[in-house]
């Protein structure tokens, strides 16, 4: 019997090529029409140490890491068992390893997974020319899963497209001989036939970058920080070709202020960071609020506090995103609900920042950002919105950039516009933007900005609600995927659960959320941090009943569907 999905790990020491193996396998499956997702694990060594590629493929979209892996491919056994806690195996799992590589390490062995001997080293020796064990393994696994050689070969060509031809050839050859060798393996991992559609292979970080570009962002100020660096590394050359610019600031203070300066000049601008950098940026977020300047800030969350675990996931920056900055500094906070949603959320964030002249914080996380995922390329997109720039030129006196009127959204003509000169002002100011210290302007401008944020109604973009059960899971970001998968399983077991995902976190879309929770008797807020930050925030907004339950635990392990399902059940 064929299966709907398959979870495979390729692991090995530094230089074993586990990551390329995973990449080729994922791509081959994607080409064949499957959905899929790949995540990476690395040892402590900064670079070149042991690693594991965690790949899932399925005929359905994948949004969560699996409860368990079907297959563990050991390219060698060196230091690999340190990953055991992050790679759940059980007796139904198979371990494909070369007998020459020695015995299965105890941490893996204790899972009781079945050992399937696979003479990879011997196998590649028999082929002609330079050969690669990792590709040999991929070829075999691909064949067993039911892929065609075409798909495997094309995937190898894709992954190694920047390498010299002899390298590509050697990899191709190994994959092909591995493919052939599969005949000797008794391992049933054959996949059901996939449904074909237009698909993309993309990571959450890339998708956010793409969304920002679609949203018009043409300036990025940033400072490298894991796990956000690959976002900007992907973005930089594309932005340049689009006539934009990415500037590496000397630090995050520079980066966010560069972005704010560019935005003041009329260019939609963004900064991209992770927790430590975000903490440094909150003073300037306050400036963007006070001076009413659009800004997109992407925070790819990682495990904190402080430097924490730079490369691993957590959802613990909610407090900082919602509350960070001194003074009354209301801002807009959003989070993509899946990798597939990253582009749309980032695009939406860019529009909202521009239209509401305010900082918009996008809370992504390492799990979304660094999951290379196969998604349907046809995703809903937000309607463009733009900054108001057409101010009424004053007959006399200065232009009232910060006019107090019925509409709190007052035009901000870019510098270069004659007769509308204004000063962006972070001090309490009067309508023309001059510093003022009386209660009148202070309260008036605080009200103006609060009204602006209160008027932001995301409409259907507030989030999503799936199902209508009286039990609801409320989640955001990378926790939505596992929650939905848990709900699918619970539904299959006859215990349907509603899943409510927030795309807009602040200002809390209270009315939409209330509608989504209509008829719910049990509310469970699931999030990935210790302090139950979202839960307390929702309570503080009276958006959930005080009897609501909280499921909150820190990273660095991603939520697995079974974890949520077993809590709910």
């Amino acid at each position, binding site marked *: 019997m064929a299966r709907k999905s398959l979870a495979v790990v390729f692991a090995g020491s530094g230089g074993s090529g586990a990551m390329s193996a995973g990449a080729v396998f994922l791509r081959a499956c994607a080409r064949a029409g499957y959905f899929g997702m790949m995540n990476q694990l690395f040892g402590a060594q900064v670079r070149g140490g042991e690693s594991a590629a965690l790949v899932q493929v399925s005929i359905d979209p994948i949004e969560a890491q699996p409860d368990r892996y079907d297959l563990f491919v050991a390219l060698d056994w060196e230091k690999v068992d340190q990953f055991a806690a992050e790679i759940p195996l059980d007796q139904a799992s198979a371990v494909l390893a070369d007998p020459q590589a020695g015995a299965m390490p105890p941490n893996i062995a204790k899972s009781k997974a079945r050992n399937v001997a696979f003479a990879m080293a011997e196998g590649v020796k028999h082929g002609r020319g330079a050969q690669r064990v990792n590709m040999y393994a991929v070829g075999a696994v691909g064949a067993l899963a039911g892929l065609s050689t075409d798909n495997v070969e094309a995937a190898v060509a894709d992954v190694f497209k920047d390498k010299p031809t002899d390298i590509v050839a050697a990899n191709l050859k190994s994959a092909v001989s591995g493919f052939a060798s599969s005949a000797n393996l008794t391992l049933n991992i054959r996949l059901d036939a996939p449904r074909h559609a237009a698909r993309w292979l993309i990571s959450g970080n890339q998708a956010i970058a*793409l969304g920002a570009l679609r949203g018009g962002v043409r300036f990025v100020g940033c400072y490298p920080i894991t796990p956000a660096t690959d976002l900007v590394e992907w973005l930089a050359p594309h932005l340049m070709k689009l006539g934009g610019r990415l500037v590496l600031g000397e630090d995050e203070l520079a980066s966010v202020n560069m972005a704010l300066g560019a935005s003041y000049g009329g260019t939609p601008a963004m900064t991209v960071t992770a927790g430590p950098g975000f903490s440094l940026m909150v003073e300037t977020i306050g400036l963007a609020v006070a001076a009413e300047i659009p800004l997109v800030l992407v925070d790819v969350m990682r495990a904190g506090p402080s430097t924490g675990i730079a490369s691993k996931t957590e959802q613990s920056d909610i407090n900082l995103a919602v509350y960070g900055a001194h003074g009354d500094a209301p801002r807009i906070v959003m989070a993509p609900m899946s990798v597939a949603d990253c582009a749309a959320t980032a695009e939406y964030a860019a529009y909202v920042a521009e239209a509401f002249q305010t900082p918009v914080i996008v809370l992504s996380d390492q799990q979304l950002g660094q999951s290379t995922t196969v998604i349907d390329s046809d995703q809903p997109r937000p309607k463009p919105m733009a900054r108001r720039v057409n101010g009424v030129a004053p007959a006399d006196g200065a232009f009232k950039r910060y006019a107090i009127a019925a509409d709190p959204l007052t035009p901000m003509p870019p510098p*270069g516009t004659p007769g509308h000169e204004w000063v962006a002002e972070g001090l309490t100011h009067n309508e023309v933007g001059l510093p003022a210290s009386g209660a009148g302007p202070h309260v008036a401008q605080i009200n103006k900005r609060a009204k602006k944020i209160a008027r932001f109604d995301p409409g259907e973009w507030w989030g999503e609600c799936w199902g209508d059960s009286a039990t609801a899971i409320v989640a955001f970001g990378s926790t939505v995927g596992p929650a939905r998968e848990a709900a699918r399983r619970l539904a299959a077991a006859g215990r349907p659960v509603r899943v409510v995902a927030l795309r807009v976190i602040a200002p809390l879309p209270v009315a939409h959320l209330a509608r989504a929770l209509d008829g719910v008797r049990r509310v469970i807020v699931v999030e990935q941090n210790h302090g139950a930050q979202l839960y307390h925030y929702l309570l503080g907004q009276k958006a959930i009943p005080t009897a609501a339950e909280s499921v909150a635990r820190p990273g660095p392990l991603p939520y697995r569907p079974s974890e949520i399902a077993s809590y709910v059940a």
Partner: protein
Amino acid sequence: MTDTITARTTEAPHCVFDAKEFASGAHPVWCPGCGDFGVLAALERGLAKHGRPPHEVVLVSGIGCSSRLPGYMSTYGFHGVHGRALAAATGLKLTRPDLEVIVVGGDGDGYSIGGNHFIHACRRNVDMLYVVMDNRVYGMTKGQPSPTTEADWDSDIAPGGIGLRPFNPLAVAIASGANYVARGFSGDPNGLADLILDGIRWPGFAFIEVLSPCVTFRPEQSGWKKLVRPSAISVESDRAAATALVLADDGFSLGVLYRGDRAAVAPPQAPSIAVADIEREFTLA
């Protein structure tokens, strides 16, 4: 300014303005006699001579008495947070090379909290002018020693003096790569206006340290007018020689100290692709 210098400017004036047209009319919060009035006058005059209209000019500043200046001019302005003016100006100028971007502020704003942006702005060499009104004190917070304060200046927070050798902004600017380094005096607004014009037109990052007395917390600085001399520093295109000059100087020589020939950061390239081209990268065909 000599002919040679003008000949190397990047832009010619396109129309002529009166200095008054650069004033916003707002009443400065500065204490009567504050040196910053002279800097304001010099900026108005320098910009009038430069000839670009107020709406094509943006004054960017941080926080401090001196940083209040943008509100007093009729140009566009960005009065940001303390110490980050150079960063904001960098983002602005890199995306809007058509604008004249001038950064102003104090010694605290620029050399203390803003020190990192100062050295990196010098290095980055974006085409803009940075005018520091140095009164060797945090004026706005009512008189604490700044990086340029004399070691023995007595204050509440550092009784008997802070005891540190003052920061040498000119030496640091040269070491960090500024392309134009000068010293002016607020008591000579015309001379300063000429330096400002020169600095605006010089390619790359131009830095003018202005001695601008704080009459309230450093009343003894009224003696500066007797100490300044307009000539001892000569224009040097050699960084080592310029450094030697500035290290040997007593800090009161006025004029252009260094002019380098580094090219400013280039503006962004014209778009060569569309977003749709990028999306193709993700397809699986």
